[in-house]
């Protein structure tokens, strides 16, 4: 019996970690992003945003895989979609542009600058070379490599980390503008990905606002349509899970789970894994309410996440607009004959012709 308890939670854990659920908002965002990218031009910016654990990184990885497969599968020959993580590598957890370009070169497996080579002397030589170079040199190396590899899209994941540059807000704007210039000179479209604060950061640069479009992976709201889709998600997560007596599926706790996951699918998966861990630690054989409740986020955490989602909704919200008037009618109205003054004769010439 112990063997059974050991087997299904781990299998479920592996399933949650390895398989990605292609739920509705994910599919919609994927479709929207693909279309946006197809219609985008060099030097433009497409922003992919959504709540944390909303599936943004999975979406980027999937796109990168699809583009690579379509181009032949060898990233050293052609790499149309490059995805790089913006890490805070500088001292004090700050963002550094030099470290970012070094990461990009590493991501490209650059023969002369990558620090992930297997050969120790060659790796050390590359590290030394990066240390000798300044940011502009690394930028040029990235630009040449991206052009050579035929890269069309450069995705920067966790782009909200740029905000932690540690200097003034002007520097942050300058970094974003430099990324835009870099994208234009490297012949790529920039895909900035991050949580909702990225929108606020983007708006600090007027150049980028004019050149950008936004694709969102929203959480499932408490609407009828959202509820239906969220129930499908919960059914998928319930597969292979053994529940306590009286519970058939996670859908039995749908409202409770929606409230504390805020409709974010990735958060449900994380919560379920945590609950499974508590169940296993307790030595229980089935998942029960107490495990789920013990694993749920604290009210403070939920409040913080909710405020971030509210911020996103506020930033991306649009004021309601009536359907535009028919411009043909308006044009007709503009050209309509004005009212004549007393004794005013309209079109004298016409009158004369008629008289004759």
């Amino acid at each position, binding site marked *: 019996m112990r063997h059974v308890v050991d087997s299904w939670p781990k299998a479920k854990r592996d399933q949650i970690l390895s398989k990605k659920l292609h739920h509705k908002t994910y599919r919609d965002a994927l479709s929207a992003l693909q279309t946006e990218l197809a219609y985008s031009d060099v030097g433009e910016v497409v922003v992919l945003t959504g709540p944390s654990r909303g599936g943004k990184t999975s979406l980027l990885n999937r796109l990168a895989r699809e583009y690579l497969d379509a181009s032949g599968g060898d990233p050293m020959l052609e790499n149309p979609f490059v995805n790089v993580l913006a890490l805070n590598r500088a001292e004090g957890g700050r963002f550094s542009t030099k470290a970012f370009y070094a990461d990009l070169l590493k991501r490209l497996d650059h023969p*002369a600058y990558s620090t992930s080579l297997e050969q120790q002397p060659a790796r050390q030589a590359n590290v*030394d070379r990066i240390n000798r170079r300044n940011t502009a040199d690394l930028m040029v190396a990235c630009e040449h490599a991206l052009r050579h590899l035929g890269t069309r899209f450069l995705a920067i994941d966790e782009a909200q980390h740029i905000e932690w540059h540690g200097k003034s807000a002007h520097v942050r704007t300058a970094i974003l503008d430099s990324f835009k210039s870099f994208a234009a000179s490297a012949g790529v479209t920039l895909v900035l990905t991050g949580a909702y604060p990225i929108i606020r950061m983007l708006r600090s640069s007027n150049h980028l606002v004019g050149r950008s479009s936004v694709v969102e992976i929203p959480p499932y709201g408490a609407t009828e349509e959202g509820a239906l889709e969220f129930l499908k998600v919960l059914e998928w997560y319930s597969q292979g899970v053994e529940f306590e007596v009286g519970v058939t599926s996670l859908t039995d706790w749908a409202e409770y789970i929606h409230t504390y996951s805020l409709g974010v699918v990735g958060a449900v998966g994380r919560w379920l894994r945590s609950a499974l861990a508590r169940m296993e630690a307790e030595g229980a054989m089935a998942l029960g309410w107490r495990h789920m409740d013990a694993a749920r986020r604290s009210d403070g955490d939920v409040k913080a996440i909710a405020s971030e989602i509210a911020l996103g909704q506020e930033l991306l919200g649009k004021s309601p607009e009536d359907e535009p008037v028919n411009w043909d009618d308006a044009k007709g109205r503009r050209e309509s004959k004005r009212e004549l003054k007393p004794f005013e004769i309209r079109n004298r010439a016409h009158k004369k012709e008629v008289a004759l």
Partner: protein
Amino acid sequence: MTLFRTTPLGVGSDGVESFSSYIVRLASVHGLSVNEFRAILLNRYLADPGCIDERVRSKYAIPNLANLVRPTDFSYQMVDLVEMATGERVLSLLTFHALGNEFGRQRAVFRQEIAWCPLCLSDQIDSGQALHLKLAWSIKEYSVCHIHGCLVVQQCPACNGDQNSLRMRRSFGECTRCGNSLVGRGVFTPEATQLRVYVQDLIGLIAGINENPGEKLSYHAAMRCLDGVYSEIRRREKALGLSEVVPQDELHSILYGTTELTLPVLRRLAYRLDLDLYQLLSGRLEPVTRPLDESWLMILPANLRPKPKRPRICRGLLLARLEAALQRSEAPLPLSAVARLAGTTTGAVEYRFPSFARQVKDSFRIFEGKRRQRQEEMGRMLVYEFLASANQVSRKAAQRYVAANSDLSKNKIRALVSKYVPPANQTLSISQCGNRR
């Protein structure tokens, strides 16, 4: 480690990219200068201990970018290294390695500078190709583009700078010195009558090298072919025609090997005999030639014409002319004047009649020495006269006096006066002047 795969352009055609251009593009793709790129190759593929830190030192620097297409040891090593690093196995086709040491080591064959056709660069942009330099542009005698008919350019039209720089560059469309565009600029199309040059054989040679990878062209193969052709012509009793279209000295150089058989000479021979240059050099030529037509064979393009030879003259007749020239003047003449009067050159007289030349030079040297001695004597006497008669002695006045009474040059007068007339405020007597002599 493998490098980014960069395909050489135009392989298998006459518009093949040069190895210099390929190396620059490859280094640029990797964000490196050319020398740094070479240091990486040496370090990683040859594990050269002297180049372990991949810093560029003079020992590891590329001496001349344009020379990478020549068959030198350095170029062979570079091709091997780059082939190892990129996996491209056709890089020797981007060079003139096929020409071998006999022809490929002749410095006169290749340019020392990077050259380009501005209109070909423009065409490359229009066709969406990466900008590159063609192999044909590295041949010295390829002075006019065979596609556009304009002169091949070696210097930036804006700053006159050459483009041999080894730094990393974005493309070949920009000057490495001033950054101005090189595409479509500096175009000069010579008129047909001004410069009619023939480069189709060079294009054929490059096409032949690219169509037959691995084949070596050699001096001996060309000799064998020409022997066969001559035998065939002799058999057809057309030897006389051949000797007229090919100058005698070139015939001798080929038949007896007395002078060096260079690529320009072979090009001229191939043109005149209507032979394919590549087939001639590869030794695959059939020993037959078309019937020789002197009417067009004698009209050579400007760049294929040999240097004009002086007509042969009779040795005795020349000596008689020289002696007659010597007799024209009573005073001995310099050798240059004698040679000019005889219608020849000083070098020719020294080479053909060394004893006569020595005799003329000696007699003129003696005559000149005596004349100078007389002049100096006369000048000295004039200075003495001036010192004896002048009320106020000054060097300026002495110079004026001597100049008025002689035809000595200004420099000679100045030397004499400074020797015998003291500076101002230091008047000497005649006896003192005599002592200073």
